């Protein structure tokens, strides 16, 4: 017992340990997240271009005023909204359907489920790039299969105004439907079996069982999934970058990609920071809901 007490490690107090354990994490966050955020807040009130030697000039809220007046900024938000709506709706129904099918006992269930879930682990940039190849108008395999099986004439997937956004949706659906499958499966397996048995005794219809037993148990998790996917669509632009590069015209420029363009192609650093901050506020609002929801799930 004496031996335990006399080491330096035993003199570390609980409080000391708390600081020792948390400090590295928060120093890193301070240095690489919080500090850049404060800096970009400052820049969002400045007229500044990062590729010139001129220092930032404070211009008040002019950047924000400019953004709100610009029709093209609103257009980007509309494109983002369209993309989120299309992608999430398809993923939701397809994913839930697959999960319903998977939710039964059979030999090889584990492997089959993991294989269905695989695509979501892949890099969107890599997959997107390959989808572009498969969706080529003339020698892409997608048009070939569509033509052979359904007699559909060749579609200019990634290069036409009508189909550019849907092609990104296709890739996004392929990548993220598994996410809905995964969460739906978790929801479905949380439904107590005896409820179904009781319903069987009462000769309830399949629809009744689905509506009054399955759905209430799965709904919270599905809501979580939809929220997560919505947030995601506001954050990343890999798919757009590799599949259409925002084109043709501006038809696939979702907001994060537009910010990237503003900052690193047009070099409107100040303006891009302002727009980034608007996006950030949207994301924080969404993630607030998300985390509140997560914590409620944790407690139950």
């Amino acid at each position, binding site marked *: 017992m004496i031996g*335990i007490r006399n080491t330096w*490690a035993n003199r*570390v*107090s*609980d409080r000391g*340990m*708390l600081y020792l*354990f*948390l400090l*590295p*994490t928060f120093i890193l*966050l301070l240095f*690489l*997240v*919080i500090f*850049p*955020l404060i800096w*970009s807040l400052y*820049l969002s009130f400045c007229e500044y271009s*990062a590729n010139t030697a001129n220092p930032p000039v404070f211009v008040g809220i002019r950047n924000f005023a400019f953004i709100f007046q610009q029709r093209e900024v609103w257009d980007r938000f509309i494109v983002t909204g369209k993309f989120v709506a299309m992608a999430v709706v398809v993923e939701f129904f397809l994913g839930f359907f*697959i999960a319903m099918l998977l939710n039964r*006992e*059979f030999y090889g269930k584990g492997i*089959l489920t993991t*294989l*269905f879930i*695989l695509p979501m*682990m*892949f*890099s*969107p940039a*890599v*997959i*997107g*790039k*390959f989808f572009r190849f498969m969706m080529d108008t003339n020698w892409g395999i997608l048009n*070939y299969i569509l033509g052979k099986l359904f007699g559909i004439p060749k579609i200019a997937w990634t290069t036409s105004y009508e189909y550019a956004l849907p092609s990104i949706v296709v890739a996004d659906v392929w990548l993220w439907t598994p996410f809905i499958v*995964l*969460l739906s*499966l*978790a929801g479905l397996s949380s439904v107590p079996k005896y409820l179904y048995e009781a319903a069987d005794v009462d000769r309830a219809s399949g629809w009744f069982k689905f509506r009054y037993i399955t759905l209430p148990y799965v709904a919270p*998790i599905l809501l979580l999934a939809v929220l997560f996917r919505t947030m995601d669509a506001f*954050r*990343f*632009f890999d798919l757009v970058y590799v599949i259409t590069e925002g084109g043709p015209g501006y038809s696939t420029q979702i907001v994060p990609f537009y*910010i990237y363009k503003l*900052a690193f192609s047009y070099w409107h650093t100040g303006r*891009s*920071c302002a727009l980034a*901050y608007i*996006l*950030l506020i949207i*994301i*924080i609002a*969404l993630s*607030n809901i*998300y985390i509140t929801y*997560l914590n409620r*799930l*944790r407690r139950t």
Partner: protein
Amino acid sequence: MNEFQRRQVKNRVIVVVLVVMLGVYLFPIYWMFSTATKTKLDAFSLPPKWVWRPQAENFRNVFYVGGGGALGKVKGVEVKPKPSAFLRQLGNSIVVSFVSTILATFLGALSGYVFSRMKVRGKDDLLFVVLSSRMLPPVVIAIPLVMMYRALGLFDTRFGLIIMYTVFNLAFAVWMMRSFVDDIPIEYEEAALVDGYSRFQAFFKFIFPEMRVGMVATAIFSLIMTWNEFTFSLLLTGEKARTAVPSIAHSLGTAGVNWGHIAAGSFLMVIPVVVFTFLLGGNLIRGFTFGAIKE
């Protein structure tokens, strides 16, 4: 047929339907493999060649410049293959993913323990700050980060990318590890504390080893996420420290694209992810909900 048998038959039909759907669903991966192992001519031929002789040339050309036919003696001069940029980028990917994963998992384990077991003032707010660092769009902090990195000489260095990825994974690791520590019975420490160990000792002697499983799961997740990361690598690196993913997306993407190369490179990037995903098994759901839902 009684009720039981009818259910059996229905089940079997559904499983067959599932297998067919899976086949259709994973077709792009099959096509990636087939494009990677076909000759340039075969890769573009329509109707597609369903039977072909697999060849490794694309893979070799991804790694070595001056491969493809020019190897050996050309006009009496020995032609040696030179390692390609992709080989270096793959090396960067490996180094950066592994180092940042180890750092993030270790720091995340420490913080996760504190958040799970100890009283921290403003705990919920701190946890929110941690998680929102993960939720924010990379492009938002990327703008000042690029300037900061250039000023500090961190731009286009592996070290710069490593610390960025550590932060990027840290949020996830903290939440994940907190949920794993929640699962460890509190009696372990209580017994150690009664024996006269300090909390600090008790942690390293008894709790830390118990966190193994959680740390492995967390580490695999971070590995996959760093391996796949695109935005930070695209913006914070140039020639030297760039990882493989943005280089597949980027440098090969101009006119006269050699899709066989891209398919081969992509396929190489996808393989480790498949392995890791199978290793994760039942922890998938937990990872994607930041520890909120357990299987």
